[in-house]
């Protein structure tokens, strides 16, 4: 899995930063500012390139008994199997410079893949996953699943 991402501060439009009060999410890594989006943060958000625009969408669901799958990640296999049939699932790119899992920050070249679904409350994004490669498992303390990377093999 991937429980957080970081994106360079310069990559998010100022309007988006203001609209979502993202300044609380600014961190300085060795003095270089970046926005971090972690699963544990409230509200739980992810940047998404969707319909040609960069948007911030709610990330998954933290309701164990809600209408949506619990968590922020779904396997690509389940989605292909019809998990979100009827919710107009649409594959999107989650832009990021870095991913975070079990204490490891790893490089993301272009982004990771997500799926946006329509809900009554509006669109929600889930991170698409697949079984971890040996490399990813070792790097992230045996995480069984990893995100789908865009044009990158890990």
């Amino acid at each position: 899995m991937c429980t957080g991402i970081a994106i360079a501060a310069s990559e998010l439009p100022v309007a988006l930063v203001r609209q979502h009060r993202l300044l609380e999410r600014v961190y300085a890594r060795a003095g270089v500012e970046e926005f971090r989006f972690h699963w544990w943060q409230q509200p739980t958000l992810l940047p998404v390139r969707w319909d040609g625009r960069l948007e911030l969408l709610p990330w998954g669901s933290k309701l164990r008994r809600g209408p949506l799958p619990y968590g922020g990640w779904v396997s690509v296999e389940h989605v292909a199997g019809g998990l979100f049939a009827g919710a107009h699932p649409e594959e999107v790119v989650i832009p990021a410079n870095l991913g975070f899992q079990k204490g490891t920050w790893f490089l993301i070249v272009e982004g990771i893949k997500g799926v946006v679904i329509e809900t009554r409350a509006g669109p929600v994004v889930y991170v698409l996953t697949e079984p971890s490669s040996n490399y990813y498992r070792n790097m992230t303390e045996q995480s069984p699943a990893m995100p789908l990377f865009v044009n990158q093999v890990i």
Partner: protein
Amino acid sequence: MSSSSLVGFGDADSFYASAETVRRPWLAGLPVGVLGNQGACVIARNYEMKKFGVKVGEPIWESKQKCPDGVYVKRDFRWYETLSRRMLAAVGTFSPKVEYYSIDEFFWEGHRAKGQGYRQTAHTIRDHIKRTVGLPMTVAIARTRTLAKLFADTAKPFGAVAVEDPDHETELLAKLPVTEIAGIAGRREARLAPHGIRTCLDLRNASGLLVRSLLTVTGHDLWRELNGYKTTPIRPDRPRHKMIARGGSLAGRVSDPNVLYGWLVRNLERLIEELQYHEVRPSTLTVALAYHDAEPASASAPLAVPSERFDVLLDAARAGLRACWRRGRTATHMHVIASGLRRGPWQLSLFDPPDPKLDAVAKVKREVNEALGRWKVRSGSTLWANGWYDDPANEHEVCDIRGKFCF
């Protein structure tokens, strides 16, 4: 090389990590660690990460405790080779004789740049590499290779020094522990200590006979270099290989003989590729296995006639694997080594009759792979090591970078 000329040495600072910053400038200033092919160990880190105490070879689960904001990157030897060759070409504009010593180290015949002294020349070369290749390099110019390498190590990172003055040389050598010399550590260090040899200056001032008795001819050569005598010339061309090996980690612990066989065939196909490139044929093939839970084992098989044919070498390799396989034990590393290398013209032999059919298959395999990419056509046995082929980063290893003297 004239005996009076100096030797230049350049060593890229934190090469792999710096190479990543060249193509991703936003990494500049961040602590960066490069992970090995298993994603488990830090094989290189930049100075920002080094400040946190992260060491090369350290497992990631330890390094991320020391440096929680560290950024981990996967190694990419294709890119590192590209930059390495750019550095080689850039250094070549300053000297007619350059030795490609390793992926990030170069020796050259030291000449003063026009209108400059050696110190200025060292600065000029360093700045030229940074400007044209984008990499930080430390440059040292001294009387010999050993001295230049030692002084470069003391000037890192992004240093540029020239040590021509003997007093300056003495002053620097006095500050350096003898273990700073590549090849002197552990037992060799322990042999020197009872004779009061603790610094590089102590070693330089010791009797040559004593050094030879303690450290053999190799140590004596180092002693000569410390005293300003050039023992190894600058070698613009790598001498012919005496042996060629391919192998390495098995991407985990392997006890399944089928998986081991898959790795054997993979390593053999890589080896044959290299034999064909160098136009040599081995007369002996050795298979070596390292185990997690048993002593390492190796077995050699002589070939009836030197050959680079897949079927002939596979028979020998199979026999080698059978001899060093330990049932129920888990292997971690494998090497297939070709030795007794012979160059053409080849004599036909009763033991190695021409096989036009196999030759044609080998030719097609080679041509397809040259046209479409490595391993597009490969032995079906490598399916046992299939996961390895899914990752393009595994197509090109550091040993695939030709022409250099060592890693």
